[in-house]
């Protein structure tokens, strides 16, 4: 915050009265910086997205782990089992939800680690890179699922 501080004039701020002679600067009306359509800054919306994908993952990942390993005969699904599983509509939906939420959560998590290390300009570039990687990963996953579903039996 680059504010001009006047030495010796700290704002005392009585609860029921202002300091004698204190006049809030007229030019300091809040510009609502960074508050966009959602009423929240980008940083706030990214946090919310990370929290929501995380909460989603708790459920979806649990279902995935149980379905892929504990319900599968022998503990690991062979090719035929994988395709059979994906052919059930609910299973395919859950796998797509898993793909989306885990990739978004992972990219946001990496970004959080990097916020502490990078400056503003580098952070913007890295965020863009993570977004691209995320979109590619989701695209690849969707393509893989559709390829398995359309493969000859």
């Amino acid at each position, binding site marked *: 915050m680059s504010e001009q501080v006047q030495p010796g004039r*700290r704002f005392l701020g009585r609860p029921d009265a202002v300091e004698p002679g204190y006049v809030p600067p007229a030019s300091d*009306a809040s510009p*609502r910086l960074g508050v966009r*359509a959602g009423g929240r800054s980008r940083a706030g919306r990214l946090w919310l997205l990370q929290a929501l994908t995380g909460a989603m993952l708790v459920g979806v990942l649990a279902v995935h782990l149980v379905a892929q390993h504990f319900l599968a005969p022998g503990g690991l699904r062979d090719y035929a089992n994988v395709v059979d599983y994906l052919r059930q509509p609910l299973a395919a939906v859950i796998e797509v939800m898993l793909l989306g939420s885990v990739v978004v959560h992972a990219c946001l998590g990496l970004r959080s680690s990097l916020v502490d290390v990078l400056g503003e300009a580098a952070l913007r570039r890295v965020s863009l890179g993570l977004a691209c990687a995320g979109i590619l990963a989701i695209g690849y996953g969707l393509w893989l699922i559709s390829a398995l579903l359309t493969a000859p039996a």
Partner: protein
Amino acid sequence: MPDEQIRLRLWRTTAPQRERAGFVETAVRADRAADSVLDVIERVWAEADPTLVFRHACHHASCGTCAVRVNGRERLPCITALRDVWDGHSALTIEPLRNVPLVADLAVDPTSQLDQLAALRFPYVRTVEESVRCATGIERDADVGTAERFEDCLECLACVSACPVASGSPEYLGPAVLAAAQRIAEEPRHGDVDRVLDLVDTDHGVWQCRSVWACSAVCPSGVDPGARIMDLRRRLLRRRPIPAGAPA
């Protein structure tokens, strides 16, 4: 009577007689039952080494000036009893706060944090949150009006020193500034709450907190910056967009 010997490992910066910064061991008299840690530091300065640089003022935890790290943990040495941190034979390690610019030895420079608090226009006087009924059952004295007191925060910067995020990221606003911002949002006292919320609603503001809670654990004054940062987040998440065409 200070008739025991205490070995202290004090952090010393470079000086004409010291080429490198590091821990220097010093021994002084101590009274484990009666001394505070600040008493011992002052005795080092008075009897062993007058070149020791340290900060102190009120000696009763109302100014926040003397904060240091004792055995790795942030404390106010003026109110830390020696018997609570010293077993009577081990060396006692005293070093300056982290994440705050160091002047020399144990003394840090709080200017940057104080300037940020001034830029927030953090008011130092607040209403008392609970009034105590006196024996007559009257809550308010007509002559005094609403009860007032100083804010809890001493600006001792123990929270900033304890925060792991602040140690890696100097851009982070930090628990002291964020807790002060929350106090303005909670009790505006003619402050501009929207302006303050805008200032903290950034990647290096409330959203960089990792909920470690080290700040609340070391605060000597019960500010609980951790909970206040979470409260700021809730206020930000509840904010509504400005309707199109409305003045800012």
